[in-house]
Each structure stands twice: as C-alpha cells, then as structure tokens.
C-alpha cells in the first residue's frame, strides 16, 4: 500500500514539477503570474490528439510537436501582449486571464466541448516491489525525466539559460552587463509554454483531451509554486514532488476532494506564515 502510494505520488509529482517550473520561471523573470499556463498544457495535448490520434504520427514525435506548438504560440503571445506589461503585476495577471479565456474559447470553437480520448500508445502493467505500475504512466514519467534533464542542461549550460538566471536574480545589473532583456523574456515565456505543452502532450493519452483540461494542472502548478516559493526553481521541484506524494496519500486514505482541500489549506498556511515559500527568498 505504502509503496503504491509513493509510486503514484512520484508519477503525478513529475508532471506537477514540469508545470510548476514554467509557471515559476515566468514569475521569476517577468513578475507575471500567468493564469493561462494551463491552456498551453491543453494546446500540447490537443496537438497530440490531432497528430497521433487522427494522423497516426508516432506518439513521441507528436508530443514534441505539441510542445513546440505551445512554445511558439507562447513566444508570439509574449511579444504581442505581455512584453508591454513586464513587472506590472496586476495588469499582466488580468491579461493572462484574458489570454486563458481566448485560448480556451478558440479551442472550444474549433473542436467543440466534447472530451476526446487519445489511444494509449502503451498498455499493461509491471510491478515494482509490491506496487503495480502501468506502462503508460511509466512512459510519461520517463518522458518527464528527459524533459527535466533537458531543461536543467539548458539552464546550466547554455548562454541563454545563464542570461535567464541572471535576469531572474537581478534585472538591473543584468541589463547593465549587456543581457538583452527582450530576448530573455521571449525565451523564458517560450520555454515555459514549451514545458507546459510537453506535459500536456505526455498526459494526453492518460486523461481525456478537451478545452477545459488545462484548469486542473494549472491549479496544481499554482499550489506547487506557492509551496516551493514563487520564482524558485528548486522550490518547484520540491513542491511538485511533495504535492504529488501528499495527494496520493490523502486521496487513497480519504478522497481526492479532501486531498485538494488539504493542498489549498497548505497554500493558505504557507502564504500567511512564510510568503516566500519553502525554498524562496523574499523578492525585492
């Protein structure tokens, strides 16, 4: 029982981590709380639904395309709508609400409200100790690990990654040092949406695909990011796994509703007691 709960928790947690990373990165770099984050997840899933489901493309290629589509859309939206609102926390937050509504309704108009399902590219289960692990979840988890490793390498090794970390830490000094903020904003927003799109694509066969599917992952990302500290990358990692585990335990013991209430109560407690989150520093 305990093994099963831990395995389930970690499997869910990995996806939360990916969602939360993108969300927290945009806040860290642009001071924007992006309520549209879940919609990029949804777009990744919709692309997988079209390419893998309707055209029969290989699953992973479809996921990659889903991620890229979400990422590109993110870059365009950042440039057109968010650039003018960088560091204006309230207007940019409301703008993100508008973006969320527009993306949702566009998909609603094109695809209709029905929840569609994507054929599972993998089936069956394997056992790890006394825990039963479905193969499709395993593949999602492996995919998530690859994405995380890639993101980590990008952040640590590439020049753009370095520039992004620099801007997150100290925008003024970085601009003095010659970091071009505009490029970093585009890259960060695109990257964040790419991550969300990949997560959505990976999860497409697990749940159904529809215009509103991004809302719950967005909610989870939000919880994770508050737990870990808004703007903190290690915090998002820790928070994601923590939420995955606590949810798994609480929903097994009680119900998923109770698990969700508990996670929001945790958020309330954290914001009141330690607004910077578990790993965050108080932003200036």
């Amino acid at each position: 029982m305990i093994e099963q709960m831990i395995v389930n928790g970690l499997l869910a947690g990995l996806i939360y981590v990916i969602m939360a990373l993108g969300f927290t990165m945009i806040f860290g770099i642009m001071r924007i709380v992006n309520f549209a984050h879940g919609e990029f997840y949804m777009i990744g899933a919709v692309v997988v639904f079209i390419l893998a489901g309707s055209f029969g493309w290989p699953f992973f290629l479809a996921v990659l395309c889903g991620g890229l589509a979400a990422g590109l859309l993110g870059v365009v939206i950042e440039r057109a709508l968010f650039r003018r609102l960088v560091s204006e926390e309230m207007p940019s937050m409301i703008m993100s609400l508008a973006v969320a509504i527009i993306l949702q309704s566009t998909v609603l108009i094109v695809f209709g409200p029905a929840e569609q399902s994507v054929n599972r590219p993998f089936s069956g289960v394997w056992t790890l100790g006394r825990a039963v692990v479905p193969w499709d979840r395993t593949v999602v988890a492996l995919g998530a690990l690859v994405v995380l490793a890639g993101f980590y390498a990008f952040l640590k090794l590439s020049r753009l990654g370095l520039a992004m970390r620099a801007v997150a830490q100290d925008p003024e000094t970085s601009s003095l040092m010659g970091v071009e903020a505009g490029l970093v904003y585009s890259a960060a927003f695109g990257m964040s949406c790419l991550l969300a799109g990949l997560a959505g694509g990976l999860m497409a066969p697990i749940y159904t695909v529809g215009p509103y599917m991004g809302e719950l992952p967005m909610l989870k990302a939000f919880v994770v990011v508050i737990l870990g500290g808004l703007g903190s990358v290690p915090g998002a990692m820790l928070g994601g796994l923590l939420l995955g585990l606590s949810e798994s335990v609480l929903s097994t013991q009680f119900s998923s509703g109770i698990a969700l209430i508990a996670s929001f109560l945790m958020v309330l407690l954290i914001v009141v007691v330690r607004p910077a989150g578990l790993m965050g520093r108080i932003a200036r």
Partner: protein
Amino acid sequence: MKRITTLYAALAVLALVPWFLGNRYVFHIATMITIMTPMAFSMGLMLKLGQLSIAQPAFMGIGAYAAALLSMQLGLPTPAALLCGGLIGGLMALATGPVFLRIKGVYFVLLTYAFGEVIFLIFQEWTSLTGGMSGLYGIPKLSLFGFRLAQTYHYYVLGLVFTVLCFLVLRGIEKSNIGAIIEALNEDEMLSRSIGSNAIAWRVAAYTLSGFIAGISGGIYAFYIGFLSPDPFGFRGSVDLIVINTIGGTGSILGPLLGAIVVVPLPELLREARQYQLLIYGVCLMASIIFIKQGLVSLGRRRGGKA
C-alpha cells in the same frame, strides 16, 4: 455636473426598460445585473484599497448557502435568513481579514484565490449539507411582510433596491472622510500610518463590508433561482467580476455599475453562439487592458472633464 445628471437619468430610464419590454427573459437578465452589480462593487471596494480579492464569489456562495440552508433546515423566516447570509459573509471576512490583509500585491491575490478554492471545494464535497455537485433543491421563495416574492420582476425590484442602497452607501463613503482615508492608505501607506492611520483596521472594515454585500447578493440569488450548485461561486465567478471591474474601470463607483450593465447581458445576448461568448469576453478584457487602462468611466472623463 450636468453630464453626471444626464448619466443618472439615463440609468434610471434604463432601470425601467424591462417593464417596457415586458418580457420575462429581459427581467431575468435585469435581475442578474442587479445581483452582479453589488458583487462588482464588493470587489471594487477592495480594489480601492489596492487589493484584488478573488474570494468575493466565495463570500457570495457563503451567503447563498447560508440563507438557503437556514430557511430550509432551521425554518428561519426568509428575510432573516437573507440577513444572516450577509452577516455570515461579513463575519467570514472579519475573521480572515486580520490575517489575509497583512499580505499585499500578488500574494494577496493568490491567498484569496486559495481561500476561494477551499470554500468552493467545501460546497462541492460536503454533500450531506450542500448537495454537492448535484445541487441544493427546493429553496423556498422569499416572503417579505407576508408578501411572497414569486415572480421574476419581484426579485428585479429587490435587486434594484439593494443595488441602489449599495451604490448610495459606497458613494457616501467615497465622498466622505472615510473615502479620503482609504484613498490615502492606497496612495501612501507609510505616510498614512505615520499619521496614525490603523491600516489593518480600515482594510478589515472594508473587507467585512465587502463580505456582507457579497453575502446578501448571494442570498438574493439563492431565493431568486431556487437552486444552488457550487459553480457560480468558483474562480469563473471571480473572472466575471474582474472583467466587469476592468471594463468599467475602478476609479469611481460608477465603474463597476457600468461594467455590470455592459458585461452581464453579454453571455445572454450571445446565446445562439454560445461558443463565441467566451471569445468575445476574452477579447473585450484584453482590449480594455491595452486600450483603456482606466475603464469605461475614464472614457467619459477624458471627454467631459472630471465626472
């Protein structure tokens, strides 16, 4: 001065329109406007303090469920249940305010968001009390002084009275010394506090009032519709209120009023093209952020001087 008089006259005429059209459906839309306008006021009041509260629909829900359950389960007379709903909404705000209102900016938004979600989930999960997602049926109609409010237009009149009352009270506050104190707090908290302004106490007072207003709106809604489900009290509800306040403008109490008149009928007018209503909603919100930062009210002001 003249312009503002014209505006009030136009609003008064507008309020009578449902009777000219005599259509029950028009009365329904009008009633929803009179329920949502005080809600928008309650969010606008907090915006005046520089705090965006996502929890307002939660207070509305608390008022709605409280009024419905008090009259159904405890047999409280409906007007008393309505009043209690408002008071419980206010008390919830009073209880959470001293903790929440120490937090500012984005964190306050996120805090009230989480609080709203908790309340929403409680409505959804506590099925023995609220009926959960399948809803709460059989809410009685409101009876005032032995008169049973059974028709849609009865609730329209009730909503209208409550809206006008809220408008007058909030307008009075805005024009009074309290308005100046609140504006001062929002503009320069450090200065206000150095002169002795008890910032938290003022914020809590405003928050409590906003919770009360939302609670009463919820009660009217419950008795009007006669059925409750958690849906209208979730995040969607807050988005509606944000849209109303953004489009209407937050500079003056007229903003949320005009915003509600424009925004609330929108989904109803677009009934045939349901999937397009969300899109138009989103585009309006986006346009209002880009083009009219101060909202509809500022358009009038820019042309006609100070409103």
